[in-house]
């Protein structure tokens, strides 16, 4: 039986409990897929961003998905380059692990995948070493602590300060798109889905826009659940009721069974 922290072999699934949690697929100790409602998956990144058309996706899915060769069909049909596709799949996994950790991981449940289970549609090949994924997730979480100082958390619903004018040139397209979507209803996660961009990238741009005074943050509602590893800080100098993580408590490393000591 697979347990957190023990070596992982074979083909397994980690069901991550949290709000909203997610699913991590592990094959021979390597992470091949991670999906969560908190960040756009590879399909959303490819289609919503316009990198692959809906028609091309449908054709490749029909031809390839039943034989577990959707990625090969997308590449063979010239919809996307092989390297480009792997980059998107990789970034989707890193973004999902980051998003799950950022929103809070309560527990995880390993499950063995049988021959009749449907495999993830766009796996990373051969897969990501768990230590690498855990280390990158920890690095990203550390960066979010800086954004938290600006009041930027996953729970905010930012609003553009000024009316958005159409872009004259194509530079800073993402910043412009974020300003258009920031209407006071959408969280960073909602904006990431609407644009087909990663949550980390969107949060980074939002932080930049907030620090430049182009995005305003309304007082956020209290987070839905305050977990045991989250401490609510009552400090007059900082935005109220924002949860703060204690260093090393994101649980992502333990969940992945990754050993981050000695720089491994």
């Amino acid at each position: 039986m697979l347990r957190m922290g023990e070596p992982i072999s074979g083909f397994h699934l980690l069901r991550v409990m949290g709000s909203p949690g997610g699913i991590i697929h592990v094959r021979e100790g390597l992470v091949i897929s991670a999906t969560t409602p908190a960040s756009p998956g590879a399909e959303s990144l490819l289609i919503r961003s316009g990198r692959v058309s809906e028609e091309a996706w449908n054709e490749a899915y029909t031809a390839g998905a039943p034989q577990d060769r959707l990625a090969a069909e997308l590449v063979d049909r010239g919809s996307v380059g092989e390297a480009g596709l792997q980059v998107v799949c990789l970034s989707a996994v890193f973004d999902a692990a980051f998003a799950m950790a950022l929103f809070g991981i309560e527990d995880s449940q390993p499950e063995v995948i049988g021959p009749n289970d449907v495999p993830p549609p766009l796996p990373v090949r051969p897969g990501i070493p768990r230590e690498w994924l855990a280390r990158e997730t920890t690095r990203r979480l550390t960066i979010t602590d800086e954004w938290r100082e600006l009041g930027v958390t996953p729970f905010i619903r930012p609003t553009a300060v000024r009316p958005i004018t159409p872009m004259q040139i194509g530079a800073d397209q993402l910043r412009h798109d974020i300003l258009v979507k920031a209407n006071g209803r959408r969280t960073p996660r909602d904006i990431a889905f609407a644009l087909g961009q990663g949550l980390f990238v969107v949060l980074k741009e939002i932080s930049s826009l907030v620090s430049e005074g182009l995005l305003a943050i309304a007082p956020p509602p209290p987070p839905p659940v305050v977990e045991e590893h989250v401490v609510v800080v009552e400090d007059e100098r900082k935005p109220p009721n924002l949860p703060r993580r204690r260093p090393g408590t994101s649980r992502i490393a333990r969940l992945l069974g990754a050993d981050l000591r000695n720089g491994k």
Partner: protein
Amino acid sequence: MSLSALKAELQSLRERVTGVMESAVATVDGLVVGADTDTVSPETVSALAAATLGLGKRFGYEVGLHELREVVIRCRGGYIVVYALGNIALLAILADEGLDVTRLHVESRPTVERLTHLLASERARA
């Protein structure tokens, strides 16, 4: 019935369930009761949701699958989910493709209960 209580329920559902974007409560004949919408027209959503719910109920009975639980429509950009609120109204939810449908079914249950109660008590007062 307090319209603000109804809207508070819809906003609370949007905040609790990742992926929920907009929602509306309508009568079974397609008239808006209250909505938490952004980009869509509440009137359009209400009318189409009423037709969808009616069709789903009829379909279930015609093919012997019995009582309707809910209607779930999956599109490229996300989901449309319609729940019945008793026999008098419906709750239509629009969500993006990141929605965890199972979680929505679990989380929406108390919302459906409370909305049904709100509407029933309003009806009793009328």
